């Protein structure tokens, strides 16, 4: 998995690319959430358009990120959730936990 990021209107957009399955690449994303909070960047969107699939380790990393942000008065939202990831979120009932948007623009606009 590769990870890039950009900032739009004070919101950080994380762009993982590839598969999120566990192992060293996944800690990249996990650590990024902590680093961003340390930098006082607390509005985060994870753009999943280039994530082929993720397993429960990937879901766990997103949950961990969500919790980290919430505990620091921040927010984490998802954008461009692919069909496969959407079905995983549905079967694990995590659709009720994450706020998702069809585009990054819509997700950015949702931050107050």
């Amino acid at each position, binding site marked *: 998995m590769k990870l890039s990021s950009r900032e739009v209107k004070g919101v950080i957009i994380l762009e993982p690319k590839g*598969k999120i*399955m*566990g*192992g*060293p*690449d996944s800690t990249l994303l996990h650590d990024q959430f902590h680093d961003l909070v340390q930098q006082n960047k607390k509005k985060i969107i994870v753009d999943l358009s280039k994530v*082929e*699939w*993720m*397993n*429960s*380790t990937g*879901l*766990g990393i997103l*949950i*961990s990120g*969500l*919790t980290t942000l919430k505990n620091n008065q921040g927010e984490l939202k998802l954008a461009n959730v692919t*069909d*496969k990831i959407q079905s*995983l979120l549905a*079967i*694990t*009932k*995590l659709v*009720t*936990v994450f706020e998702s948007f069809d585009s990054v623009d819509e997700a950015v606009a949702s931050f107050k």
Partner: protein
Amino acid sequence: MVSMKKLVKKNNQIKVPSDLDYLAEVDKFVEQKLKKTTLNKSQLADIAISVTEAVTNAMLHGNKKDPHKEVTIDVEVKPKEIVITIQDQGNGFDPDKVPNPTQGDLIKVAGRGVFIYKTLMDKVEFFIKPHQGTTVKMVKEIKPETK
């Protein structure tokens, strides 16, 4: 002294040490074995996700990340189904005692692996011999859908 395990590939089998760094190799191996099947993208993803879930569990919970223990993955492509077995060298577990992750605390970080592969695969069986390892056998039917 027993040497540390290494990755070994032979025909339809791959053996890896109990180290999550090898997950990507396992995924690549399975992808390669399924390349010429008529499974569609979604079915291939279901298999890939399920295998990584079972292998992760085998490494972390079965073999307790012991570098001297390995996980063996066999991929069998049959005319109407794909059969994948994942075997560890651990002490076994009771799959009926794995909690349902959709009940209770939804935001726990772990505990969804077994639930996910039981949902994504068409059939899952566990073969457990106490102190002799666990084998998870998972089956995906090759349904007549186009790629």
